[in-house]
């Protein structure tokens, strides 16, 4: 991973969501919140293959990533990374991502509680999830950071 600054690593480890900035083929800027996992070298995210992010990075792989470790406000630093994106289609890598994401987002007391308290939505969630998996409609994107900087929130 870029840089050995412990603050960079801490922000990355503590963040649950990131915001991914991309440019469309026509040059229009986009920004999308996405979930992610990282392995110390690269960051991975899974999104619909038909999503703007997947389409954009196939044409323009240079992206910008924002992480705030879910701490916000003028005093909270934001980690901004520039990265190169690649769509990866290896089944083993996809399975690795799914396991890591399940541990990070679902197999925790708060994650389980969040599911239980929305039990009415679970059938729709399961149908949506099965549909995406069965039709292989998702794109796994690998993001290899090139630079990292801490920026202050607006004040």
């Amino acid at each position: 991973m870029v840089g050995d600054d412990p603050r960079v690593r801490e922000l990355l480890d503590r963040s649950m969501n990131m915001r991914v900035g991309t440019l469309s083929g026509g040059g229009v800027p986009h920004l999308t919140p996405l979930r992610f996992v990282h392995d110390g070298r690269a960051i991975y995210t899974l999104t619909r293959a038909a999503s703007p992010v997947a389409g954009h990075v196939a044409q323009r792989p240079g992206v910008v990533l924002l992480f705030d470790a879910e701490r916000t406000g003028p005093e909270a630093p934001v980690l901004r990374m520039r990265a190169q994106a690649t769509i990866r289609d290896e089944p083993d890598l996809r399975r690795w991502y799914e396991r890591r994401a399940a541990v990070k987002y679902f197999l925790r007391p708060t994650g389980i509680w969040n599911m239980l308290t929305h039990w009415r939505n679970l059938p729709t969630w399961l149908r949506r999830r099965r549909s995406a998996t069965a039709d292989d409609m998702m794109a796994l994107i690998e993001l290899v950071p090139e630079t990292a900087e801490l920026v202050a929130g607006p004040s």
Partner: protein
Amino acid sequence: MAPATRRVEPDDVRDLLAAPPRANLAFRRGDTVEAAPVAFRHDGGRYWVGVPRFGEGAPVGPGEVVKLVIDDGVWFFDLRGVWVRGRTVPAEPVPDGAPASLVWYEIVPDKTVAWDYGTLRTVGDHGR
């Protein structure tokens, strides 16, 4: 199979727009994309962003196409937010109470999308 959606109207997340935990803006810088946290105000369906100054200017100019994202939540069914794509217009006057240290723009939307995963449903469940 009927599709699922988590789309809502921006007015459904007005409490988030009134006090957003974060606001981030994407814009172009040459041939690359740039993104940064910004200050945000919302009033009467209008969107303003405050961008930090860099020297004498701001990283975003008037008339630029930008995308603003307001989002909140950690766990799946808590995720919600709004994005606004539009052009920047210098804010005159700046919103009440807006820090003068920032450069303020109103974003004139050409598209606005809101979502709330807590409302995840099959399309048609609630008549929309």
